[in-house]
């Protein structure tokens, strides 16, 4: 294969032959240089022609890799740079306009800020958690089983992990595991009131107070029952004890009725106790005079309440806020403010196992005698960890950290999958912005390429650092 491209030259042909695996079968007319080459005499290598030969061979062997590299790495880089200096469809040269746009557009600034947050927070957290897990799993029985389980998230594609976490963070406690947990914990300490969600019938006496209580707007007196109509209680939350509301009452003192002023199926009159409408039992009612509470009671099954001792006028009636405590709706994990931390959480879940495995390998390589010596000298476990273990695994930590920095700079898939469209802007990062302006509707390949170049420049230092540390590791 290679010979055909060589110049027709006896010596060179012979020299090429030396590369053959079976030199013994080569033609007898072998030149001295070739023989010298084979014998490995150093002087011969420095001679003109053999060096040429060596180089040719090197080039030939490297050619496939170099060509692949040129086609898949060098050309795209150059083409991206070229595109970044052109307009949306690459038809007009615009100089550095895209770069100016890039640093002035609010979207992109937000993306860069988020990238900074990611780079500062995610790699260090993952490394620290990985280190803790590595140290802990070293001490337990069945360490391999633990490590396997912790490493498992890496076996899942990021897309699938993203979809999973999208569900975990779902707003509704019925669907999202995170909110189901948050609500369960919250309700243990403060459960919702039976009448949450109800509100006053428009045009009635009641107005809402700031603390969620409902209060009569003006003063009421003890001459006739006070009608307090409420609406908006779902059918399935009406207490089973509720009896039809008492329409008339000829009792004594300050009294009234709290009822659900809605006739099922429609047809009732607003503000009037209609036949099928039900009272709201066990509602905490307070009577106020000049702002001070002068009486407390609760409603009966038919919604009636009374303060027999209170007569005359100048009262206000208040339905305590505790009747209407809203249930805890959970946390809006994927809303504008929490979306980035939430996605970083998912990222940690995926990568902590990976960091742990690498760091455990580093830990395993630490000479045991160093640790034992420290313990013999009376160091506590914490001191051993801080002064012996940590410095010895530092190179591994650096590798893990730098790898994660590079990875985090390019973060894209998790954000695209987890962040709902409405908060994608708030979770945006450079790689996602690059995709959005290029393909996601913007169709601005110039700006997209400029972002690509920015990303490349951001990754470059971390990459060089990593390559340097690799070299050091080898030597």
């Amino acid at each position, binding site marked *: 294969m290679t010979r055909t491209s060589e110049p027709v030259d006896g010596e060179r042909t012979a020299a090429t032959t030396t590369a053959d695996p079976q030199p013994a079968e080569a033609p007898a007319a072998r030149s001295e240089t070739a023989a010298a080459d084979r014998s490995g005499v150093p002087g011969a290598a420095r001679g003109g022609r053999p060096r040429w030969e060596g180089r040719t061979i090197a080039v030939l062997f490297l050619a496939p*890799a170099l060509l692949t*590299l040129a*086609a*898949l*790495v060098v050309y*795209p*880089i150059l*083409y*991206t740079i070229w*595109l970044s200096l052109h307009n949306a469809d690459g038809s007009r040269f615009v100089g550095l306009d895209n770069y100016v746009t890039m640093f002035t557009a609010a979207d992109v600034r937000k993306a860069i800020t988020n990238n900074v947050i990611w780079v500062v927070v995610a790699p260090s957290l993952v490394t620290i958690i990985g280190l803790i897990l590595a140290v802990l799993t070293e001490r337990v029985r069945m360490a391999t089983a633990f490590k396997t389980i912790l490493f498992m998230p890496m076996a899942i594609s990021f897309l699938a992990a993203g979809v999973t976490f999208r569900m975990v963070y*779902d*707003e509704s406690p019925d669907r999202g595991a995170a909110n189901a947990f948050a609500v369960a914990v919250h309700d243990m300490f403060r459960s919702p009131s039976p009448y949450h*969600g*109800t*509100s006053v*019938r428009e045009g009635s006496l009641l107005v809402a107070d700031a603390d969620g209580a409902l209060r009569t707007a003006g003063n009421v007196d003890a001459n006739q029952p006070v009608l307090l109509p409420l*609406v*908006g*209680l*779902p*059918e399935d*939350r009406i207490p089973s004890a509720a009896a039809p509301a008492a329409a008339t009452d000829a009792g004594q003192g300050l009294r009234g009725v709290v009822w659900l*002023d*809605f*006739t*099922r*199926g*429609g*047809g009732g009159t607003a503000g009037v106790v209609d036949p099928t409408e039900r009272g709201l039992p066990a509602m905490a009612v307070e009577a106020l005079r000049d702002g001070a509470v002068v009486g407390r009671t609760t409603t009966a099954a038919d919604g009636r309440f009374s303060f027999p001792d209170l007569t005359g006028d100048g009262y206000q009636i208040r339905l305590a806020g505790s009747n209407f405590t809203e249930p805890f*709706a959970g946390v*809006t994990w*994927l*809303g504008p403010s929490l979306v980035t931390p939430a996605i970083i959480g998912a990222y940690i879940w995926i990568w902590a196992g990976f960091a742990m495995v690498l760091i455990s390998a580093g830990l395993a390589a630490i000479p045991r005698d160093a640790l034992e010596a420290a313990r013999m000298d009376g160091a506590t476990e914490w001191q051993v960890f801080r002064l012996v273990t940590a410095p010895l695994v530092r190179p591994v930590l650096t590798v893990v950290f730098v790898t994660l920095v*590079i990875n985090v700079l*390019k973060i894209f898939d998790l954000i695209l999958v987890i962040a*709902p*469209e*409405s*908060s*994608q*802007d708030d979770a945006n990062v450079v790689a996602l912005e*690059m995709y*959005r302006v*290029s*393909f*996601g*509707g*913007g*169709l*601005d*390949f110039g700006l997209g*390429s400029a972002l*690509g170049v920015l*990303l*490349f420049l951001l*990754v470059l230092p971390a*990459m060089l650092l*990593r*390559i340097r540390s*690799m070299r050091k590791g080898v030597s």
Partner: protein
Amino acid sequence: MSRVLRSGAAALATAVALGAAGCGGGTEVPGSGSAAGSSTSLSGQTVEVAATWSGTEQANFQAVLDAFAKKTGATVKYTSGGDDMAALINSRLAGGAPPDVALIAQPGVIAEFARKGAIKPVTGAAATAMDANYSPAWKQLGMVDGQLYGIPFKVANKSVVWYRTEQFAQAGVQPPTTWEEFVTVTRTLADAGINPMAVPGGDGWTLTDWFENVYLRVAGPEKYAQLAAHKLPWTDPTVVEALKILGEYWAMPRTVQGGSSGALQLGFTQSVADVFGEKPKSAMLFEGDFVGAEITKLGKVKVGETAKFFDWPSIKGSGPAVVTAGDQAVAFKDTPGAVALMEFLASPEAAAQMAAKGGFLSANKNLDLAQYPDDTIRALATSVVKADLLQFDLSDLTPQAFGGGTSASMWKLLQDFLAAPTDAAGIAQKLEDAAKRDFGSK
């Protein structure tokens, strides 16, 4: 070495996608020997169709393609573009290997392609089929600069509000016909302890449909068309008025499921499940006819019995108007296979295949209405076929960056408006700023 290669390549994913032009190529079957353009025998030829559909819709469409394959002998390959059809087509175009035929939902995108010369005008047998089967209003909608490019295969009636009958019965309300009645119904539902409306604000496109329906009724069709072309600024009083009406509705207490922040987390598919699932969380859901198919797919309630729809209420005495949308078939090649498929897609035969499966409306006037599986869909289809006054979904008519995809300006700004539905004039100004930028770049 390989590490450098990997990192570099990954960091420059864009460049790879753009640069390695040939890589995206499918097998391009050249218009083989037989010159007979309208020949029915296309055996040995491969025609590639791309559309957004996946799942059930894809299966339904596959039946149409199978019928075509059976009729002509051609091999049909279906490519699902998912939500990002434009991204798929653009990268395929950049790679020099577009599909033969694509069904594209955004007329604005079709116009862009037509002006770039990427798609072929509809001529010959396909044009004849179009004339025979569609009303002039529909043909008008498929034209770009006086030349026919698109054949409306699947159309939508986006002016209907879906509701659950038992919720309405419980509250004792009837489907409204005017906006005032609509507001009253909403309030009564809330009083009955039923959450009135699910607004899937997590998907920005649903919000654009809200705006369009209000705007068409507030401003009328002429201004609507002008606004779509940005010949009318978004700061126009009619826009502000429409936004005000919309904002007042969204801001009504106990109306939008989950409040503003909850609505922004709610996706469209989830909203269908929330309203038409086992335990309804809301009584009404506004979106197009395709909600019917989603309800059926969900399988909890029956369309036409428990799930019904009413026409979008008239605002200030506006007449019946329909905001429509549709997947139009356009041809990227004029190979015999592509032309034959375009002709087939314009035929009542193709429409009948898909109509029978439900969740599909055709604007084909020669399609037998008996093909539709139930009265609900028949009613939806009748109004679309007979409508003289049609307006395309406005956001689909605008450039992609403004109304055509995830993170498009109009989607984002209406989401902002849903989050804080009070400052109509402010949002109108922001929409105008975005429109200036996004329309200007074309």
